[in-house]
């Protein structure tokens, strides 16, 4: 599963599962970038075959609904959807 990397302040291991076409995913990315936080993301809709399967299976462990955006912080905290306040509280 190939993650895209965005530079910024290190606030832990932050992974965003997103879709390239989704409005709430876009808002989430913009929020994280405005906060200036280092993170990795994957646009699952742009994956195929084995990589798609791996991405979906990984996401499923954190969010059984396989919905987007899903933000995983340090493997332990999961924020599903564009939850502005929760994301700010965790990453500010």
């Amino acid at each position: 599963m190939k993650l895209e990397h965005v530079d910024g302040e290190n606030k832990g291991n932050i992974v965003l599962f997103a879709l390239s076409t989704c409005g709430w995913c876009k808002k989430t990315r913009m929020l994280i970038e405005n906060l200036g936080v280092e993170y990795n993301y994957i646009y699952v809709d742009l994956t195929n075959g084995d990589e798609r399967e791996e991405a979906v299976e990984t996401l499923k462990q954190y969010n059984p609904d396989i919905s987007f955006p899903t933000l995983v912080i340090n493997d332990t905290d999961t924020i599903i959807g564009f939850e502005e306040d929760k994301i700010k509280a965790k990453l500010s």
Partner: protein
Amino acid sequence: MGQAYDNFKKEAESSGYNVNADVEFVEMLLENIDVNIERYGYGACPCRLASGEKEKDLDLICPCDYRDEDLDNYGACFCALYVTQDVLDGKKKLTSIPDRRLKELELKKNKKTQSNEDNVSSLNFEFPVWRCKVCGYLCSRPKPPNKCPICKVDAERFEQIL
């Protein structure tokens, strides 16, 4: 900028639906539905993961099967392309909402296996009754209409209920 929004809004309002007032957000979603039409050959919901197989994705073609229930429960569809009047009037806050899709699909699967043949009607209609899975429009005729006259989705989005 704005033309695509205006056209979409006019169309939605003619069938009794309201569109998110954020023009830029809505136009981005409309563009991405077009991206999905290019990619898959059908306008899959831009906020859900499409499989690429139309048969598996019929329920998530925009407008999706979940729009009306999400509007009732949360004031917006999953993408927030469609919203309720309360959201437009500021009486209800627009937020991102949980995706009901996988749970609903599971529920439907269980229901089907439970009562496979129970659904045969004792009523003796001359024609079967078809239900639009998006907006609930009912009609009784040999086949479903090519397009739902209310919400404009294709015939394949209809199910036979009687």
